[in-house]
């Protein structure tokens, strides 16, 4: 993979790292390890470059970062404090925080499918290729992830307003 290709992939890879790790510091550590590995290992001919990059990133996360639980998980992370008098903006930030919190409770399998499809807009076929899973598994994992996320959010909203 050329450096130009790698540079093009950095923003989506970074978002993917953030989706998996739930915090910036771990996301950037994971991104760094991914870049190191991508620079050392050429992309196999049979695999699309971006699928390869995401797969390397995901495997690193599974093998190293997740087991070490380097820093705080999503659930323990504090929402960022923004000085803003704009209540709509604050509400939006709170929604994002609640989503972060709910995502932290999902399994890794659900997180990665959600990240590739909902954030990066990958097709199911491409996600299946990237994660090396059957298309049906992608569909069902994504649906379960969304349903669980939805349930968790509804519970949180109801709890807060009660």
């Amino acid at each position: 993979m050329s450096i130009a290709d790698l540079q093009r992939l950095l923003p989506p890879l970074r978002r993917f790292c953030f989706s998996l790790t739930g915090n910036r510091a771990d996301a950037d550590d994971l991104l760094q390890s991914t870049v190191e590995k991508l620079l050392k290992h050429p992309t196999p001919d049979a695999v699309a470059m971006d699928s390869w990059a995401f797969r390397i990133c995901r495997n690193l996360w599974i093998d190293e970062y997740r087991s070490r639980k380097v820093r705080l998980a999503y659930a323990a992370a504090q929402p960022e404090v923004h000085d803003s008098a704009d209540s709509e903006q604050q509400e939006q930030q709170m929604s994002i925080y609640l989503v972060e919190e709910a995502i932290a409770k999902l399994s890794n399998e659900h997180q990665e499918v959600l990240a590739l499809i909902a954030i990066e807009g990958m097709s199911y076929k491409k996600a299946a290729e990237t994660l090396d899973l059957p298309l049906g598994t992608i569909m069902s994992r994504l649906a379960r992830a969304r349903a669980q996320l939805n349930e968790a959010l509804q519970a949180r909203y109801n709890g807060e307003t009660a």
Partner: protein
Amino acid sequence: MISDETLSAFLDAELPEADMQQIYQQVQQQPELALRLASLCSMDACFRKMARRLDDEPLPAAVTELLQAASQDNQPQQGWWQQSYSTLQRHAAAVASLALISGMLVGYYAPAEADHWPLIASTLEQSVSGQSYTATKQLTLTPTLAFINNEQQLCRHYQQSTATATSEHLACKQGDNWQLIASAYQPAVRHSGEYQLASHQSALDSVMDQLGVQAVLTLQQEHDLQRKNN
């Protein structure tokens, strides 16, 4: 009752067209289904916002340093831009032509370019690599590579052909204006059958090294840029 899986696939437009239409109609008719869908949409939107917050932040220094070190490591043998240069098939014509060039001269500004410069600059602005453009009746330009230099300027390497001569050039965009950086000329008449590929390559290579190649634009990126400029 539409399953979560089907609704999720509907949201991602991953169902067959007939199923998409059928669910779309049901969403119109069933407020509860519309609410379920809206809930999924809003959750996805929050998720995207969450992840995209990092987009505006600078890359971690460690990653930037890794990339810089990698590009420097690659330069002494075959610069990574040269790898891209040769990997991208669109440069094949330019590479082939280099083998036929002898007695090259390298200059940092050629007065002869001045006459046609507005046309050349306009072509650089609106062209993609690998295609030939007729600037005037006598002058054909073939951009061969677009890249970003150390100063984050867009630069182009291109060939210029007339009936009597061929030349290679590097130009970079400074502000809104293209500036010619370096040129290498082929004499109109070769006096020897001995071709000297190495001397020519080292001449423009060293200029590119001085400019620093941060990123080579892919053909798709060039097309996007061209659309933006047009």
